[in-house]
């Protein structure tokens, strides 16, 4: 079969099994868009801004496990995509971004819409390619998918100069079934000796804890993790990225850990004698003050990326490998072992944990006459029976969604954890809804974040991707305001938004349903009404208590056992600002 470069790109995507491309046309990709027009297999979703394309592809990837695919033009199209690429990179999300480039002969001449995409994205991609030969195009695309989806996943950029997609130049096409790269051989199973050592340590632990992260979800190992935890009877804490990797309603779950984690999770980490970190990377939002991090613990760390091991926290037993096969290997050894976890030690450990739980660190004022954001999330959980996909933006609302919506299944919590990208939520929700049209998809956001990619409301309409937007509107950049309250004597420097649009009218202008909610008793009926409107995107503008803060909190530079808890009975925050 002879194809031109543009056809090769599209045919390669077909052969790769790609269902959706999220993109935006422009000069350098016109040949590609022409080839796209002449087929029906790969569906193109026209976003309204290239950042939206990357986030939508990212949401699609997080929810399905399949790589997200993006197509953008050169220059500004490419640079607009960078934030979304960096977002995917920080959270290890598989993504292939095809960017147009000016023709090869003019590269380097400051041509119209020229930018060095390979150079600009180098620090925020797993790898990138500039295609210089049309006969290598199909192989390069195969390599991009291979690199993006194996080992520790991540985004890969393929920069395609316009002359490479010239319709007049046809070359033989064959999409390789497999590619190998001599310098790229990610580890799969772990070192047996190391695993044996880890099992021995686990079986003698007195105060153990399982600390699991996004790697469990990426590695499809949630069932293995659950079996592992149930077999050992150890407490489990998840990172922000790991929520859903272990059922949050399970009695062994002690909640999220870290800066806004639960008291019991952080105290258990601090007091533990053995930690097994599974697909987690000791992020600074998790560890707090490094030199006081888990002072009594010996740490086992399973990760597919050797560079994540002992990067910030030295571990005793490193295991490089994919989480799933390593957990399976461990389970086998545990079953074969004559040693069993000490019942007595675990019983007293759980007694201690129950005392920490009794602090009830997640309580808030339920009698407030203002709408508490936590209450909204709890109601959202009930109305959706805990089964919705929740995409979130970044800020206070993100933490409340993470804290008050217990995720029992993986891939249902869709948020920008590593980069913390405001504007992520709405396009990500659209990507999820396209992947699972019958599922409930909500975007939990705030008045700041939602305005960063609000133009994608138009995309949601065009492609019939009805999502429910839960806007926790406090007229503040709430997380910034919270930090300014704690650390800058409440000097609210530019964290206040005094000209917020009328979101109801805005939603209606985009062809959606808008509703405003300003009383606690209206929250539940409004949510029910919104989710009853199955085929409509609904924008719920919920005016929440403006001064509510996220608790508990480990303030910057503090250790796990030095948490700031909510003031007793919560009345301190129940006030309106003048």
């Amino acid at each position: 079969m002879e194809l031109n470069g543009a056809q090769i790109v599209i045919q390669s995507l077909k052969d790769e099994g790609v269902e959706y491309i999220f993109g935006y046309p422009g000069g350098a990709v016109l040949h590609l868009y022409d080839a796209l027009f002449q087929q029906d297999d790969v569906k193109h979703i026209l976003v309204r801004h290239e950042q939206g394309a990357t986030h939508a592809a990212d949401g699609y990837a997080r929810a399905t496990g399949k790589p997200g695919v993006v197509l953008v033009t050169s220059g500004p199209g490419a640079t607009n995509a960078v934030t979304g690429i960096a977002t995917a990179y920080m959270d290890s999300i598989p993504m292939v971004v095809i960017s147009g480039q000016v023709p090869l002969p003019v590269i380097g001449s400051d041509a119209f819409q020229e930018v060095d995409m390979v150079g600009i994205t180098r620090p925020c991609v797993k790898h990138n390619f500039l295609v210089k030969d049309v006969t290598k195009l199909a192989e390069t695309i195969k390599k991009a998918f291979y690199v993006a989806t194996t080992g520790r996943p991540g985004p890969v950029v393929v920069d395609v100069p316009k002359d490479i997609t010239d319709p007049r130049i046809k070359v033989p096409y064959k999409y390789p079934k497999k590619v190998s790269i001599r310098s790229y051989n990610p580890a799969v199973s772990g070192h047996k000796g190391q695993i044996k050592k880890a099992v021995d340590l686990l079986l003698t632990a007195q105060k153990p804890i399982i600390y699991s992260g996004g790697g469990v979800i990426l590695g499809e190992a949630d069932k293995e993790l659950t079996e592992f935890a149930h077999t050992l009877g150890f407490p489990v804490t998840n990172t922000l990225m790991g929520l859903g990797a272990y059922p949050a309603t399970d009695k062994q779950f002690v909640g999220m850990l870290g800066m806004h984690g639960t008291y019991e999770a952080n105290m258990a980490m601090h007091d533990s004698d053995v930690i097994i970190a599974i697909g987690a990377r000791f992020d600074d939002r998790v560890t707090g003050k490094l030199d006081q991090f888990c002072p009594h613990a010996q740490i086992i760390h399973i990760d597919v990326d050797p560079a994540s091991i002992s990067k910030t926290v030295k571990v005793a037993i490193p295991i490089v490998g994919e989480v799933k096969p390593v957990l399976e290997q461990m389970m086998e050894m545990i079953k074969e072992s004559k040693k069993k976890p000490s019942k007595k030690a675990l019983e007293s450990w759980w007694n201690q944990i129950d005392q920490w739980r009794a602090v009830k660190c997640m309580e808030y004022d339920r009698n407030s006459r203002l709408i508490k954001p936590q209450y909204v999330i709890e109601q959202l959980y009930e109305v959706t029976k805990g089964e919705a996909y929740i995409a979130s933006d970044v800020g206070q609302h993100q933490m409340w969604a993470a804290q008050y919506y217990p995720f029992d299944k993986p891939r249902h919590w869709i948020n920008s954890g590593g980069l913390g990208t405001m504007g992520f939520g709405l396009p990500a929700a659209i990507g999820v809804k396209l992947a699972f049209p019958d599922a409930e998809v909500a975007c939990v956001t705030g008045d700041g974040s939602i305005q960063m990619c609000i133009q994608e409301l138009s995309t949601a309409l065009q492609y019939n991707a009805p999502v429910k937007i839960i806007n926790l509107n406090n007229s503040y950049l709430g997380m910034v305001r919270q930090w300014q309250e704690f650390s800058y004597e409440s000097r609210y420097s530019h964290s206040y938004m005094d000209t917020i649009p009328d979101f109801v009218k805005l939603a209606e202008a985009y062809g959606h349903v808008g509703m405003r909610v300003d009383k606690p008793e209206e929250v539940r009926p409004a949510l029910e009404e919104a989710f009853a409107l199955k085929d409509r995107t609904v924008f719920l503008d919920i005016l929440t208590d403006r001064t509510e803060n996220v608790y508990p909190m480990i303030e910057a530079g503090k250790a796990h056992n030095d948490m700031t808890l909510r003031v007793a009975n919560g009345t301190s925050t129940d006030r309106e600002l003048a």
Partner: protein
Amino acid sequence: MRHIISILIENESGALSRVAGLFSARGYNIESLTVAPTEDSSLSRMTLVTRGSDDIIEQITKQLNKLIDVVKLIDLAESDHIERELMMVKIKTSEHTREEIRGIAAIFRGKIIDVTPTTYVVEMTGPSSKLDAFIAAIDGDTIIEVVRSGPTGISRGEKGLHL
């Protein structure tokens, strides 16, 4: 501690900037970096001198290995190795200093490879410390230019860095 990391890397455009970018992005220091083709035209060899604690060097080698273009690498400091650097020094001369400079160069096994009525260019190879010692032995005011290649190295014995 000072480490010499020897890297086999794909001979692709941009490979060098991936390595250099990694060092600047993660705040690692590079003392010197040399790149040259190898007997296999698809590969380049990079020799990189860096300094850091054991933890930092461990991260550097892990992060380098993570780059898709890096095929193989070794930290030469981990085992017995030979290190050489090439230096050319242009020195201002006068009638009564020429013999002294020739003498010092001979002690250091340097060669004089260019002569004008007022200058010498001395060529020298050796471990970096030897080159430093030669510079120290010459009157600083007479040095016009010092050009150094940066160290490169090879391990002793049968083991070697190859595919």
